[in-house]
């Protein structure tokens, strides 16, 4: 009977055949892309790259939160993308309180309030994310793995719903505070100052995060908990506090991401976050889920790929391409670019 069941099943194609097919597809796409980029000329390419890196920096900030949470409790925190949008919404509402209006302030009068806005928004998002963990994930830590995944989707819908109730189904205008100037990086090749600001903020935050994870005591506790929760607990690490801290830091980055997203694109809507979150999650998987430099690198690469696809191919197919990358990575290299093979827990 077992034999019969076996015979009735389509046998899975052997891994090597799949690998060959995958390699051919990737090589073909790379060759076509290289041709188009060559015909497009260097100026257009530099512009595209600028868009891509700015987009990628935002993806990277969001992807870091996904990868940290996944690394420590193996949960896809679907609500993370919506915490990111919440950052944009919350900062938008706070702008008048900080005296930030479009086209009025510049120089130090712009930077100081903006800094304050960043700090307040980041803290707000962090608190929201910690509360989400406390309410929706912690009670289910020993439940089957499907359970927290569904509450994560529920929390995502809930946050989207709250923002929807708050502001409605519209694309909200986000004040255009950053200078519109172009910076010349090579003769004839310019890049928007906005994009540089976005990349700079992301870079500072990512460096701060890696330093924190690598050097501080809490960072050490986080790494230990991610490796082996039980052993970490035996060493006297407060697991709940460490997990809360992970959610806190992830949301700090997402909140900052939300603000720079608003500043860069000048438009935000209640349901943006889910899509962004999924793509950022793809970036995290691409870089190697659980791996912090991997998530940053994955975010940048996905951003550049998206910009090249938008600029040289059809924008309508960009998301199809990105999600195809997701499936490809998981099939051919589930550990991602920088990830290590971890045993199934």
């Amino acid at each position: 009977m077992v034999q019969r069941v076996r015979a009735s099943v389509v046998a899975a194609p052997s891994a090597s055949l799949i690998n060959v097919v995958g390699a051919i597809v990737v090589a073909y796409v790379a060759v076509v892309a290289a041709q188009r980029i060559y015909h497009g000329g260097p100026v257009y390419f530099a512009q595209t790259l600028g868009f891509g890196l700015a987009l990628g920096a935002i993806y990277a900030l969001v992807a870091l939160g996904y990868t940290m949470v996944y690394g420590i409790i193996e949960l896809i925190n679907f609500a993370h993308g919506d915490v990111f949008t919440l950052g944009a919404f919350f900062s938008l509402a706070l702008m008048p309180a900080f005296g930030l209006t479009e086209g009025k302030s510049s120089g130090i009068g712009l930077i100081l309030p903006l800094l304050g806005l960043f700090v307040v928004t980041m803290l707000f998002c962090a608190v929201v994310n910690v509360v989400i963990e406390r309410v929706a994930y912690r009670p289910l830590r020993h439940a089957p793995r499907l359970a927290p995944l569904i509450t994560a989707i529920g929390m995502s819908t809930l946050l989207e719903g709250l923002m929807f109730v708050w502001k409605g189904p519209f694309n909200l205008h986000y004040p255009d505070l950053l200078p519109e100037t172009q910076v010349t990086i090579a003769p004839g090749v310019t890049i928007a100052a906005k994009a540089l600001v976005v990349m700079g903020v992301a870079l500072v935050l990512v460096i701060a995060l890696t330093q924190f994870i690598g050097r501080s005591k809490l960072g050490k506790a986080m790494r230990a908990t991610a490796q082996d929760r039980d052993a970490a607990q035996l060493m006297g690490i407060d697991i709940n506090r460490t997990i809360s801290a992970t959610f806190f830091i992830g949301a700090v980055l997402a909140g900052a991401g939300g603000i720079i997203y608003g500043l860069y694109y000048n438009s935000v809507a209640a349901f943006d976050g889910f899509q962004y979150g999924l793509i950022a999650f793809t970036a995290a998987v691409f870089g190697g889920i659980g791996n912090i430099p991997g998530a940053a690198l994955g975010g940048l690469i996905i951003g550049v790929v998206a910009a090249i696809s938008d600029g040289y191919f059809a924008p309508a197919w960009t998301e199809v391409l990105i999600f195809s990358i997701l499936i490809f990575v998981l099939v051919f290299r589930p550990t991602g670019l920088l990830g290590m093979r971890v045993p199934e827990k």
Partner: protein
Amino acid sequence: MTAIRNYLRAHIRDPNPIAYALMFLAAVFFPVVVQFATNGNGDYLVGLAADGGVYMLMAIGLNVVVGFAGLLDLGYAAFFAIGSYTYAILASAHLSVTPIGHAVHLPFWILLFIAMFVAACAGALLGAPTLRLRGDYLAIVTLGFGEIVPRVFANGGIWTGGIPGMSALDVPKLPFWIQGPWVNLPLGLTPDEFRFTSANLTAYYVLMLILITFVVILVHNLQNSRLGRAWMAVREDESAAAACGVNTVGIKLLAFSIGAATSGFAGAFYGAKLSYVSSENFGFIVSVTVLAMVVLGGMGNIPGAMVGAAVLYFILFYFLPQAPAQLEGLATSVGLGSLNHANASGWPGLGEEVSRAKYVIFGLILVGIMVLRPQGLLPSQVRKQELTHASKAELVAVAK
């Protein structure tokens, strides 16, 4: 009351046969009762119930994947889309505008099975390379697939009708031997009662009832077969199942394909009933809704998935759309009618605000079920025991 409950608890070990019987009776008498209660204006409700049947079919199919085999599928709507589009392309004038140049009008009854087959093939194609992955990775792959498929249909140009989709699809027609000349004879039936039109939604309802009965019998038999036991073994412990000689990849592939087939089956019906397909109807929210139905009802239990589908469908597609009008009426009758209108300070009006709140309510339902009743409304007996045993083992561990 307590005595009755205790008596029932003591004497009914398995509530499933009763659940089946009650649901079947409710389904058979539903159109009659609705028409009676609404003085013959209940066609809308009967049609809504037929649409709900589509979700019920999908919940039964997803229950095979998630409940029986323990594979998390977050892109289930993709197979639904594939089924619908298969129907739309092969049962409309659409192919005449493509380079093929000839419209294809296959009958609904054959297309039901073609759509099922196409969806099953898509499931097998996606599953073959990815089912080697474990747990969450599979969920991510299916999530990606669920995002890709509607976009491919939206970008498909003339082949899929692009973003507007395809309309004016064929309606089902009964075979000639049922529409025979005897229909007008003393049996008292007129051809209209059998005809599938937008004015005769009861016909769709009856068809849906037959389809669900068919699928439930099939899936129920599968559950009790050797294959069904192999699924549960894989769900509980894949390594142990493999060690016992279960071909785990093959078994999982079958579960995945059978789930996809059910979804494709539902998709063909959906296309025929709506006479229209558009890529916007197959987003992630559909996958999540079906998953929530299965979980709400009780994973791994067929009547559970059906009850979950019925309850959640009622809440999402009847209760919540009605709520704004109901609340506006209530506000007017208690003298707060001014709340119903938008004002300058950003209040969009009570009705608008309530209809916006549907996402909040859906989110709360999802979180609430999982935190308060993770085993679902009508849990599988096996799973229920596992859950209680697990918690006891945990208690012991904590006590030590």
